[in-house]
């Protein structure tokens, strides 16, 4: 046995296979399946001897390796008769291994960045204040006392009118609401769902909700709710 069995847990069967491939110094695109399968099973036996639990996914992989090995031992004519499309039984496994390897390497680079980022210290003694009162830049807009008087007069008229005033549903299209939400998001790192629903009629709530779903689909926003019945936060997506 010219390879070293690591007793510390592998991250999974792909991790173990990659390690075996590396230790045997073989080409990942042309895996000597008989050798690797043998070593893989041997590793599982070692674990068993140590009375260590073997994850189900390791056993599934063992079965896969044995199946590939068997297929490769069959004479080519027979393989062709059975499954004419399949060129190399190892193909799918190699794809999976390469994909896993890419992410494993990405994870290693991320870890480096993580440690690198630790070198930058932010200001000490920060305690966040929980004050969240908005600053209104447009407290009354271009509303005048005359408007107020007119609004109040209209309300009084409606109140005394016969029959009682009808509800006029404001028609707001999803597209229009979508545009409004985009505007609300400019320069904001987050927005709450409640903020968007302030002073809205039932129909507008529905339209707002549809617009939010559409923005999620377009990947312009992400939505998060940290607790049940908690604030629903709307965050601009970075993609």
């Amino acid at each position: 046995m010219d390879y070293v069995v690591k007793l510390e847990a592998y991250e999974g069967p792909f991790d173990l296979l990659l390690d075996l491939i590396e230790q045997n110094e073989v080409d990942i695109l042309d895996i000597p399946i008989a050798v690797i399968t043998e070593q893989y099973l041997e590793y599982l036996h070692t674990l068993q001897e140590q009375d260590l639990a073997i994850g189900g996914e390791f056993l599934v992989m063992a079965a896969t390796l044995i199946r590939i090995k068997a297929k490769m031992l069959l004479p080519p004519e027979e393989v062709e008769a059975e499954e004419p499309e399949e060129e190399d039984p190892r193909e799918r496994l190699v794809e999976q291994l390469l994909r896993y390897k890419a992410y494993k390497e990405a994870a290693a680079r991320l870890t480096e960045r993580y440690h690198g980022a630790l070198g930058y210290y932010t200001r000490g003694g920060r305690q966040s204040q929980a004050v969240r009162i908005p600053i209104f830049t447009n407290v009354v807009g271009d509303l005048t006392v005359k408007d107020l008087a007119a609004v109040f007069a209209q309300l009084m008229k409606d109140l005394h009118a016969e029959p009682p005033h009808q509800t006029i549903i404001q028609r707001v299209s999803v597209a229009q609401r979508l545009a409004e939400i985009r505007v609300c998001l400019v320069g904001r790192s987050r927005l709450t769902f409640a903020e968007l629903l302030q002073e809205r009629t039932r129909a507008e709530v529905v339209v707002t909700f549809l617009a939010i779903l559409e923005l999620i689909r377009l990947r312009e926003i992400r939505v998060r709710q940290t607790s049940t019945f908690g604030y629903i936060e709307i965050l601009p997506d970075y993609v």
Partner: protein
Amino acid sequence: MTLHEAERTIEALIFAADEPLSAGRLAEILGMDPKSIPALVERIQRRHQDGALMVREVGGGYQLVTKPEYAPWIEKLGRPVVHAPLSQASTETLAIIAYRQPVTKAEIEEIRGVRCDSAINNLLERELICELGRKDGPGRPILYGVTEKFLVHFGLKGLEDLPPLSIT
């Protein structure tokens, strides 16, 4: 370590520390004579003369803080800025409060025919209305009225300045 390096290291330390750092503590970390610290801090202070930060001596230690004139800006942090003008619901609620004050939420809702909780909250946040006390009677509901800020925004001397109504 050169004085130049020591000065920068002190800056980094007092920036990152959770509490003000005393000259003694700084000297201990840097392996220097505590007596040399004040002059180095003075150099940091001078370097920041043209910026927004300053070294403050507090509780026997040094701390990096923003200069006091930036306080109003920093207060705005954490406070979302809302550009939106008043909604129809808030405008109606405001009109009722202006003409009917002191008025309870139930009375406003009776006139508008819909609930006004969020409109009232919005007007309170905008500081256009305030609580005037409580009404006698069942449940002792809160009474609302307009604020000084309301008068200022609408250019009114007082409530008597509101345009008279054609119907009441």
